[in-house]
């Protein structure tokens, strides 16, 4: 799906800026499995092939040269070993990492002087790529951080949010659960583009105003009943 004329929203949970042939991913949360193991859980190690399959699919079907990582590259903190492996695999695929915007999970990333770190955001044409966990005065922004999702039968489906001069990316990592977009008033009025069965569909605008009482609950949340039934 194409938005703002220059962006392609892919079903692989990354957006492509066509004029610059740059893919933007957010929230890769590398090392999630490791974090759970360190917490004492017996879960399998990362399956690199599966983890990188969406990036591989994107690069095989689109003309992409560069990659921008919009924050939360790591689950806990910068891990040199994971980074080395990721960089090797990505360059094998033909990606060159042009920018990493640190996210709130990326402890210690800013200290890595040899990496293309952009703590205040990275300018891609007229767009500012940010992670999205802090305030910003930028005009046209691409954000990660929120892991936007729509609720479907109690389960979450990742989606892009497209608003006036703003694009919110879903989390790249399948491990990230996602945040129900209804809960956050700031997404109201934005267009929701959900990824359903390998297709990005325009699912309409995030509706509604805040509800105060029982009397207005149903009126202002027309989708509530349908969600309950579905």
């Amino acid at each position, binding site marked *: 799906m194409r938005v703002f004329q220059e962006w392609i929203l892919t079903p692989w949970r990354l957006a492509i800026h066509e004029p610059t042939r740059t893919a933007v991913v957010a929230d890769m949360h590398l090392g999630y499995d490791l974090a759970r193991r360190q*917490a004492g859980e017996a*879960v399998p190690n990362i399956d690199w092939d599966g983890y990188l399959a969406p990036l591989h699919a994107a690069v095989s079907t689109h003309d992409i040269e560069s990659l921008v990582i919009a924050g939360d590259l790591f689950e806990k903190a910068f891990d040199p070993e994971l980074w080395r492996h990721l960089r090797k695999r990505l360059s094998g695929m033909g990606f060159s990492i042009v920018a990493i915007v640190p996210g709130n999970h990326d402890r210690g990333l800013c200290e890595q002087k040899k990496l293309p770190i952009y703590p205040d955001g990275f300018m891609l044409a007229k767009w500012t790529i940010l992670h999205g966990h802090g305030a910003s005065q930028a005009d046209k922004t691409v954000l990660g951080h929120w892991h936007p999702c729509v609720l479907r039968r109690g389960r979450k489906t990742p989606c892009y949010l497209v608003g006036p001069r703003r694009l919110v990316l879903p989390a790249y990592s399948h491990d990230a659960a996602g945040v129900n977009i209804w809960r956050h008033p700031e997404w109201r009025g934005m267009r929701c583009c959900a990824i359903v069965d390998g297709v990005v569909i325009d699912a309409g605008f995030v509706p509604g105003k805040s509800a105060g009482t029982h009397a207005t609950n149903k009126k202002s949340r027309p989708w509530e009943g349908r969600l309950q039934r579905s």
Partner: protein
Amino acid sequence: MASDATLTFPGPCPSPERALLTLGDPYAAWFRETIGVPTAAQCQAWPSLHRGENLLVAAPTASGKTLAAFLPIIKKLTGMTKADGVAGAESSKPRTLGLTEPRPLGSSPLPRFLTGAALTALPGLRTASAPATRLACLYITPLKALSRDAAKNLRRHLQELRRFDPRLRTIRVGLRTGDSSAKARRLHLERPPHILLTTPESLAIMLSQSRWCDVFRNLRWVVVDEVHALIGNKRGADLALSLERLETLVAERHPSRALQRIGLSGTCVPLDIAARFLVGVGRRCTIAHQADRAPMELIVEHLPAERGDSARPAGFMARLIERLTPELARNRTTLIFTNIRSIAERLTWVLRRRFPSWTEQIAVHHSSLAVERRRRVERRLKKGKLRVVVTSTSLELGIDIGSVDSVVFVHPPGGVARTIQRLGRSGHKPGQPRRGLFLTAGIAELLEATVTAASGSAGQLEPLKVVDEPHDVLCQHLVGMAMTGWRSRSETLNIIRRAFPYRKLNEADFEHCLAYLSGKKSNGADWLPSRLQWRGNEFAIINQWTASLLRRNFGSIINEEPRAIRLLIPASDNNTEPRSLPVGTVEEAYADRLRPGDRFVLDGRCFQFRRHEDGALLVEEVAGSPIVPHWTTGGWHLAPELARRLFVFRCQAAEALRDGLQAFADFLRLEYGLEDAGIAELTRLFLMQETISEIPALDCLLIESIDNDARQEVYFHTPLSRAANDAMARVLAWRLYRERGLEGPAVVADLGFMLSLPTCQPLTPDAWRGLLAAERFADDLSEAVSESPSLRDRFARVAMTGLMVLRQPWGGRRKVGGRDWVQRRLFEQVRHHEPDFVLLRQAEREVHREVCDAPAALSFLEALPSMEVRFRSLSEVSPFAAAWTQPAQISAELAETPGNVLERLHHQLVG
């Protein structure tokens, strides 16, 4: 393998005097003076316990089971010698426990990070730390509240008995549950009580600690309260394994001694299952059974929507309140069971508004209320300060709640055993009549309540089923055993196989569990972090960090992840800080949808959501009309036996109807005690079913098909419960899709199910027969559920019980994954890496046996070739289908095409 348990039923019940003689004075004297005449259960139990036999006491509520078990134990405790370390032996001089007291040798804290190799030194340490007194009796109850209540009662009895036997002054009673403070736990270890009351979960934790194992080596008695409540679930399997581990510990120190096991159970059938479960494999057990003869009064009243009578209230809730008004007025205390929490909340809210003067005397009790609130309700109920208590199911089992005059069932409970259990909460005194009133909403409920009441009066309880070797619980125990030293493979397998639920455990499954805990795939490759280390054929826990972490995560009770609701208490004038008090919990999915300002009901009060703070939802109490929270529930479906009885009842009623309306009415009135309103409703239902379709007979499968515009709805009438119909519907839907390319959602209910299919050439009865073949049923069911949310959800639970993922991981939860990470991600990873993984197979087994009742569905299908398949094409839904199948919610997880999903999602968002 050792032979199964030998069961003995005692001969004629000894006379009360003879029974008291076995107790001897001063206990007999105390009993005569304070209690009076022993009950039949006590008369049977005391001689048997005196002889040292394992015993199951099965008797109705309030037949003195606790004293039946305890008096002989107390008597023997006081008679023990100093070498036994109990009672009279211990100096009556009060001991002071404090920092100045010299610590017993070997009780100094072990190094925090003990390696497995160092564990070998533990036996030497353990023997040196013999406790000052010896724990002789463990009392295990299924509920914390019950343990607390039992401890209180026991202490009271001991207090009274001390007047008669001063030696009892030194007998101490301890309580160890999940609520016990760290200090209390430490004191229990330093100076064990003679009698310790606990729960299965706390027992498993204690058994994983070497110092506690040492304390347990001197045990003589284990009392298991409410055995019947534990048998059918994983907690029972957990307990059975713990009991065998206790037995082994005792035998290690006293080779000639066996634990005396005493089980206390309410009315249950079959008793031999309960007894075998209690004593394990190869041991003897005596069964003392006191039949339930207390008078029972079960009334069924239908609250139908009045046709064309606008003066009467229309909604069920309004009719319910109208009917409850005289009922509540005539009783001092009424207990109302609603089956689910949201109805309990709603009813409490409405009752409080209807009877404002009773607001303080109307309470609600369910598992999503804060413990403090529940305890308060229980206390007030016991003191007789409450007029009405509305509960979902949480007061079904548990503490003595005093004098309840009447039990009201809003919607029938789905089983006879449950009905009797709930009814036992009224007239909680020997000989008092128990009064139960069923209030039913729909015609299906009316029939169900009628058959339940008749079965209850006839004492036709559903048979107990022992949970079948859950491997996740086994993994927990293997880890627990590994925490106290090196374990040999073969000896461990022998111990486990002595537990009744694991009597048939095969070696391969046992090895699969060990392989998982060692981080290996079935082919020996590494894939997970290991919990165990190996030394030849022996295993032990890999390190002490893992031990202490996993111990915190023991237990098989999995709750939906709740979000705490806390009530904001504003700061008062004198400069106090604003604070908040716990009220209860709501599910995370529900909390997700709440926005500041939303109002909802909890604890029968209206709260307004203000803000999130530290993971809790802060609320204020306000006036106004709230919405009722939603809690996920397994529903309350018919027990399989009751489903069949209900089907048979319909057949019998149909036969009576063929003899005329009068015969039909007489059948309902005389055999089932139905009143005129109910008879009129049923007459209408049966006549309409006969006119539109037919009443399904026992030896036939009735299939009804209704063609709509683009789809056909096919209804199947079976004598099966919902779970068995679920299995049939999944397999049938799967075969229709695979063989004919037809797909559509299914509605699964008790006594039938419905498939909604695209319109096609109607299938003949023979075609349906072919699709309903019993061959390859289990395989097709496995394929049908392989992608289902049911399997994923089960896997998440099993992974938690099997300690693959943890309720309380080190450093707290990883929030990024969310609450469904295991269902979503880990499930896929496990299927990819190790399709034969032991915990995945356990989840599949649970889906086959619990979510779906595959065995029942299969036996129905195996009988199908000798049955008639009758197919009817109808223009409208038959009354039976409308009464049973239609109201069931659509089980949307069955076959949904991507096109459907896309379309529905789009509609959800744009309206």
